[in-house]
């Protein structure tokens, strides 16, 4: 193994490893404070967090590895953690374990030791352990494991000094670490085979530059895909002879014990842990208050009858909380951006540059940043539910339903946030799928949550309902909510049977002990996610805002129209002479007309008219199409664009509300209204959501897919409604 010498090393590389929920993030924040940086591992969506701290003049670079239960090659998180340790060779790996649940948490420790990593074990949550009457003999534990053990309360920072001191001391010891560890015995069936394999590996230097020999042998027995593939590439011959050993052992075990190597290896790991945690090392008190409290709470909140009611109440509260408290900040954001827009408008001369900055960049970025308050509140609420442990109970209660549609208990939250109760937002919804581990179920969730009725669709519904179903507002909303759920779940089911085929991933989920989270921890969680949204979504969004602006602005006016407006302007100035006030007013009027004319001549409007060849099947005319195009920027834009388009083509120039206009329009009736409502509900997600889909899946293809697929679904349903009604004679 490696040895680190502090004297000639300017920076120590430290990795944090641990099970989900062990307090890894808390410790990371405690160690690094604000000096941290979040990115993604190249090509995948696993977060990579790194931070810097200093102790006694030594600078420590700390990497927060993904939380994992194990170090196999089954999940991307585990691979990331394992590869980091092997490839980057950190000077030390801090393994955080929950002292109240040591038996299971040491399973990862054992695997880190097998890998030959230089491990320091942190026993976190010592405060809880104490409360629960768990007594741990730190020295004995350290001796038995052959590694330093540091007790801590990450939440208060207690034990941090000691940890830092231990790290420095540990890293400066030039002796080889981990040789003192007694190799774990995997029993009389496996040990002799391991010995033989180890010998072959050592003799041939088979991948020994990367991994310990015994570990390679172990992975061959566990049929670890990554290692076997690598082995095949390194030396086909040795690899197949190792596979032969594995095969023989497997046959032998199947015949004699009716089991297989992987299972026996795991049994012995737990056996080793039990041996380490004998009575003289850990002592549990007979009474365990925290866990009893958790049991008592669970009895109520997961009860067959009361549980679902409480769940609905809690989710509804999250909702109310988010949308009530984000309402004002959203308004402030809007005011702020219109203020900036007005300021720029007054500074820059009218023209394409002003229009680009005001209507393209400021409006576009404003529309996206307008989501920020919603995201902040929503993530705060989710972080709260997640950190207390309640979210796992929601997954537990609803898994049965979601599984029917090829989804997972953990999909629930994403659907609800996106507008499962009308009024959510798909942006935080898509981001909330991070609790889903399997990529297929996760992508199916990501692709179907935009069907939910987000807050931006509501004003569109309101206008249509006011025009065609004024007496049935609540009823129509209820139908739309149920329809969204029905279609979203059905589409998820179809996707899982076709493009995202695959068996369900194991559900197997820990139901953590209930804990009261800290405000600081919640704020850090919230801020991290919000900042990522602003940063990543920001770049794509800027580009698309500019594109949409260009489509609505260019190619500008044809020559004769330009001449017409010029003449009119000169006419006004010359006839009204001194009346400055009146001139200004009339010029403004002309300017408005000119803008509308530009819009009418724009590519967007031309596209809208071209599209009506298709959309007439669902009863939409070109003005609706243009509005729907604009809705790609943000769904509420549909209303303003429709307002513009309809008032533009009204020759009388009367100033009447859009809903009234629509109710009088001969092209509109209650069937078109339904087709339109359903289309708006289902068609392409707004580009902020598309940007998030791309970011969360790590692939452009799913973003583009969601635009096309959702629009196709919307078109089918709208056409079905329109043509169906025509067919049965409703029209």
């Amino acid at each position, binding site marked *: 193994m490696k040895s680190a010498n502090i004297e000639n090393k300017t920076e120590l590389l430290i990795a944090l490893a641990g099970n989900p929920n062990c307090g890894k993030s808390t410790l990371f924040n405690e160690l690094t404070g604000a000096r941290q940086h979040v990115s993604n591992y190249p090509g995948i969506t696993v977060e990579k967090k790194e931070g810097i701290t200093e102790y006694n003049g030594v600078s420590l670079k700390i990497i927060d590895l993904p939380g994992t239960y194990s170090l196999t090659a089954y999940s991307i998180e585990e691979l990331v953690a394992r590869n980091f340790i092997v490839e980057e060779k950190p000077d030390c790996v801090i393994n955080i374990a929950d002292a109240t649940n040591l038996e*299971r948490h040491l399973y990862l420790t054992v695997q880190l030791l097998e890998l030959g990593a230089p491990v320091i074990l942190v026993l976190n949550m010592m405060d809880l352990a104490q409360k629960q009457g768990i007594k741990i003999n730190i020295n004995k534990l350290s001796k038995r494991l052959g590694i330093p053990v540091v007790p801590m309360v990450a939440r208060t920072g207690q034990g941090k000094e000691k940890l830092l001191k231990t790290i420095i001391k540990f890293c400066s010891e030039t002796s080889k670490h981990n040789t003192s560890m007694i190799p774990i015995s995997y029993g009389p069936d496996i040990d002799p085979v391991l010995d033989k394999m180890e010998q072959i590996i050592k003799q041939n230097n088979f991948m020994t530059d990367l991994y310990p020999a015994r570990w390679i042998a172990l992975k061959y027995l566990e049929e670890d895909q990554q290692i076997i593939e690598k082995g095949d590439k390194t030396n086909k011959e040795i690899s197949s002879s190792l596979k032969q050993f594995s095969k023989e052992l497997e046959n032998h075990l199947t015949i004699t014990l009716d089991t297989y190597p992987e*299972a026996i290896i795991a049994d012995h790991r*737990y056996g080793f842990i039990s041996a380490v945690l004998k009575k003289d090392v850990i002592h549990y008190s007979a009474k365990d208050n925290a866990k009893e409290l958790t*049991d008592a709470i669970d*009895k109520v909140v997961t009860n067959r009858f009361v549980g679902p009611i409480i769940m609905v109440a809690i989710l509804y509260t999250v909702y109310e909380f988010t949308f009530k408290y984000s309402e004002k900040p959203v308004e402030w954001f809007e005011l702020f951006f219109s203020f900036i827009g007005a300021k720029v408008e007054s500074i820059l001369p009218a023209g394409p540059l002003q229009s680009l900055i005001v209507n393209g960049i400021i409006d576009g970025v404003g529309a996206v940043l307008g989501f920020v308050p919603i995201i902040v509140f929503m993530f705060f609420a989710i972080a709260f539910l997640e950190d207390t442990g309640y979210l*796992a109970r929601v997954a537990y209660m609803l898994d*049965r339903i979601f599984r029917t549609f090829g989804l997972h208990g953990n999909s629930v939250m994403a659907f609800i946030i996106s507008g499962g109760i009308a009024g959510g937002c798909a942006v935080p919804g898509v981001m909330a799928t991070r609790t889903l581990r399997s990529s297929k179920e996760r992508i199916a969730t990501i692709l179907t949550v935009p069907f939910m009725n987000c807050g931006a669709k509501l004003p569109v519904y309101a206008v249509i309902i006011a025009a065609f179903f004024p007496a049935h507002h609540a009823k129509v909303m209820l139908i739309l909510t149920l329809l969204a759920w029905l279609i979203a779940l059905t589409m998820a089911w179809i996707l899982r049977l076709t493009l995202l085929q695959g068996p369900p991933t*194991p559900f*197997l989920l820990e*139901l953590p002990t209930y804990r009261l989270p800290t405000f600081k921890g919640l704020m850090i969680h919230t801020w991290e996610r919000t900042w990522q949204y602003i940063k990543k979504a920001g770049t794509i969004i800027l580009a698309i805002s500019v594109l949409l602006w260009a489509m609505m602005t260019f190619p500008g006016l044809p020559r004769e129209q330009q001449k017409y407006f010029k003449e009119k302007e000169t006419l006004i100035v010359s006839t009204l002479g001194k009346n400055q006030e009146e001139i200004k007013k009339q010029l403004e009027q002309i300017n408005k007309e000119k803008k509308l004319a530009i819009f009418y001549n724009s590519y967007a409007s031309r596209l809208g008219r071209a599209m009506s060849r298709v959309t007439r099947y669902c009863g939409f005319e070109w003005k609706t199409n243009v509005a729907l195009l604009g809705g790609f920027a943000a769904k509420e834009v549909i209303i303003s664009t429709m307002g513009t388009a309809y008032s533009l083509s009204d020759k009388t120039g009367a100033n009447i509300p859009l809903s009234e206009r629509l109710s009088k329009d001969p092209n509109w009736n209650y069937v078109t209204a339904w087709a339109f409502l359903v289309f708006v509900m289902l068609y392409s997600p707004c580009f902020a959501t598309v940007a998030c889909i791309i970011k969360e899946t790590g692939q452009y293809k799913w973003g583009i897919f969601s635009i096309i697929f959702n629009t196709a679904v919307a078109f089918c349903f709208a056409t079905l409604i329109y043509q169906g009604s025509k067919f049965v004679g409703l029209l």
Partner: protein
Amino acid sequence: MIIPMRLMKEHQKGIIRRVRATGELGRRIRDLGLTPGTPIEVQGRAPLRDPVAIKVRHFRLTLRNNEADYIDVEVEDNGS
């Protein structure tokens, strides 16, 4: 008496005797500490009777009934 975990009643205790799952499911089951010889207790079932929540090695976890099918548990024979 050895029965699959699915058939266990609420609050029934037992000791895991065998885990028949292989592949990813088998691995996940083992990672969470459900290995032969481990005592468990069924805590309850979700409102729709699936998944099941159990207590094992000082913590709680939940798994689907069709996952519990792979786990054989020795329970006290209570004559039923």
